[in-house]
């Protein structure tokens, strides 16, 4: 199968997955106990019946469920997530918050890659030596540590004790240097678990490659070890790392919800918690859908990158 056919096939496969995501997200409204209009109006017994009726019509609750779904989906496809009685235009809410989450996620992702790749390479090259053992223990800690606890500890040490970082975001724009400085702690928190996992994958992948014939040949040809490792082995080992890194978008998005609360970071995760607290179901629905879709897209990209990097992969 050519790469082109594979890409088309893979893109077509995304459609039913996205359909599933949309159905599950739409079901949030149906699964809420009680009347959704009552919930959205804050369980207010004195709520204006006309306002309730208006909301019912806006949400198309007076129509059959399949029609409700299609109308909702039509809106979503035009990036119209509805109008919440609590926060107003849901799309606007999401757009306002999205850059902060993207920035946090990107920084967490970069930190994970920057730390994991050299550490994994070093551990593989020094297999079964002290450095390898240290990296194994560090990875174990990284994976086992709950990120909200790690966030609190980083705040305690670097903000409270050492005073290097403020404990709440500074009152400046998102890309201001002092904001980026503040972002380091949440990004490290977010990237830690991913770093640990990526480092182990990098190491095992590297160890596997180092045992292959072509490495022995390269060494026999008298190539310097540095060239063998960095030019030949690293490149081949990166295939699995890149794939896993793309798949990690999901864990980064998950982690951001908790980390944004710990660090009062004004992103989508914090908004999601706010919306849950306020029973602002339309916002919850919008964010959950966005997260679901971004994970599907990340998986798709991972598959495509994998296929591009390794021509043997066509499933």
């Amino acid at each position: 199968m050519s790469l082109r056919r594979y890409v088309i096939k893979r893109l077509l496969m995304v459609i039913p997955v996205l359909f599933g995501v949309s159905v599950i997200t739409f079901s949030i409204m149906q699964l809420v106990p009680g009347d959704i209009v009552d919930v959205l109006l804050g369980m207010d017994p004195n709520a204006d019946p006309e306002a309730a009726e208006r909301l019912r019509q806006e949400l198309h609750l007076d129509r059959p469920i399949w029609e409700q779904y299609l109308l909702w989906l039509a809106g979503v496809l035009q990036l119209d997530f509805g109008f919440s009685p609590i926060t107003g235009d849901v799309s606007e809410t999401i757009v306002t918050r999205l850059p902060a989450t993207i920035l946090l996620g990107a920084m967490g992702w970069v930190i994970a890659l920057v730390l994991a790749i050299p550490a994994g390479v070093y551990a593989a090259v020094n297999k079964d030596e002290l450095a390898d053992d240290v990296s194994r223990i560090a990875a174990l800690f990284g994976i086992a540590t709950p990120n909200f606890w790690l966030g609190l500890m980083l705040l305690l040490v670097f903000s409270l004790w050492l005073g290097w970082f403020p404990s709440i975001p500074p009152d400046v724009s998102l890309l201001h240097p002092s904001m980026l400085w503040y972002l380091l702690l949440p990004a490290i928190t977010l990237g830690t678990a991913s770093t640990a996992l990526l480092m182990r994958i990098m190491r095992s992948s590297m160890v596997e490659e180092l045992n292959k014939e072509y490495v022995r040949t390269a060494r026999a040809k008298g190539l310097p070890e540095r060239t063998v490792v960095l030019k030949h082995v690293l490149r081949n080992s990166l295939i699995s790392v890149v794939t896993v890194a793309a798949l990690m978008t999901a864990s980064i998005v998950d982690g951001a919800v908790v980390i944004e609360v710990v660090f009062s970071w004004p992103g989508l995760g914090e908004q999601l918690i706010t919306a849950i607290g306020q029973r602002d179901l339309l916002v919850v629905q919008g964010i959950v859908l966005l997260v679901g879709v971004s994970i599907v897209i990340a998986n798709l990209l991972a598959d495509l990158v994998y296929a591009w990097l390794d021509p043997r992969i066509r499933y």
Partner: protein
Amino acid sequence: MPRTDRDINRREILQGMGAAGVVGLAGCIGDDDDEIEDDDTDDDTDPGTDDDTDPGTDDDTDEEETDLDEIHDGGELVIGLAENIADFDPVSMNDTTSGMTVRTLLYEGLTAIDFEGDPHPGLAEDWEQIDDTTFEFYLREGVQFHNGEELHAEQVKRSFERYEGELREPDVYEWYEDSEVVDDHTLEVHLSQPDATMITGLAGVPILPDELLDGDTDPDEHPIGTGAYQFEEFEDGDVFRASRFEDHWFEGSDSVPETPPIEEITCQIIREDASRSSALQTGDVHHSFGLASDTLDDFDASDEFDLTSTPAGGYEFMSYPVQFEPWDNANIRAGVDRLIPRPIIIEEVYHGWAERSDLPFAEISGMDEFIPDDFREEMFEEYGGYDIDEAVELIEEGFDEEGIDAPLDVNLVVNADNDDRVQWTELVAESMEQSGMFDVELETFEWTEYVARVTGPGSEENNEIVTIGLSAGFDPDSFIRATMYTGRQTPGCCNIHHYSNDELDDLIETGRHDPDVAFDTDARAEVYQEATELIMQEAPVSFTQFGTEIDIVRAGEVHGWETHPINSYKIIKGIYAPESDQVAWLDPDAA
């Protein structure tokens, strides 16, 4: 609270932060009391009796007299809020965070309440009770709104009538019939029935300018009041800012300046308890509250912080499924009430930062006035206290009357995201099990589902004991009406299991609305004593503990802070309350 001179022990804080992280994470999803908050403004003691009091001339608090020369003018106070501001419109806001930021910081009512709950002139400089159901209010002249409009009587009338059909309708329509504008600064208000709580309640009914009343500006977009602070900015879920209103009507007194010394207020929303605690310790915020109970002793003992506290109106309670046998039997309910380990709950769950609730009225309800010590002791001896033997005797009697054998299967329900509440519910469950009379199953729910379950339609059809919290105010009515009065049956807040007792209903109504009782302290005392005995005998609900309002400010940086018992008034009264000679300011050299 006793203070010792020692710094916060970092290891203790470390442990506290770890624990608080877990607690806060669970607790941040839907702050319970805020969501089912009872009206904390419908409180009053004696309307019309303090009406000749000039703001700024009373000395209602125990604080030291402030020397105006000591006060530094200017600065930005940064406050760490645990919750987002959910609503900017006074007629629909139903959470205490919106109340303490928008409603009381930006807006004012016709009256103002002090730290004891006594009413003082606010936007009305005086008022007169014409008869049981007619009041005449005389507005201050020259009062300006933040948009430059001048206050007049028509705005007051329209502000009242704006409540009709809205979420907070009972704030006004519990007593409001109609009103007549006599002239620009005089309004005659006709009550639908006499009301003992109306005058104090007016403090929580904001007066809006024509710009908002005419719909030219949406209060959700830009709130405009007459308050000492005006709205500047709100970033949803992130930050709220207000600045001093230089044209506020107060003209100053010997101890309170004509405008608040603090120039700007920034409320930073920091949901996580441990993060808020950390921000307070690093000095990123000056003031915070609602921190984990297990860290409060350390803050209290530290020289770096001033912790102020006062008994408050919030309470936690259990509602029994009285529509089901055998819970319609008062002996069984009273028996369970005596199985509640209140002293252990206060110490182990709240670390001493709560008050016992052996009787149904907290201290701030004017309990001293309504429930004298000897009566309280008599009631406690007769019906109250944690006593397993007495409890088992009562329950056995009830079981015999109902013809059932122990142990009885019982469901106890609680919302999972309030760690303190889960803990005390577990203690009650354990105590019930240990009595040998009950086999208890504890079930937890997510907040949204829980609130629908216990305040939505059909809540009375669930055969389960519900544990939940509510806010009350300075009046005894606010402690018993919401949970026990027939007219407050669900859906809505908060007679969860539809308890109905004509005798108690009569007492509740008489205490607040009977013209011969509502305005006579002695007569009210008799009514509420009678109600207390009936409630102790019947135990339709069990109060488990009353809350404590706590503020923590950075010592040396913030001066003069006082804690108000009602959390909706926390910020404005802590900063600037002319009627109580209360003023706080920032030290520019200490930060």
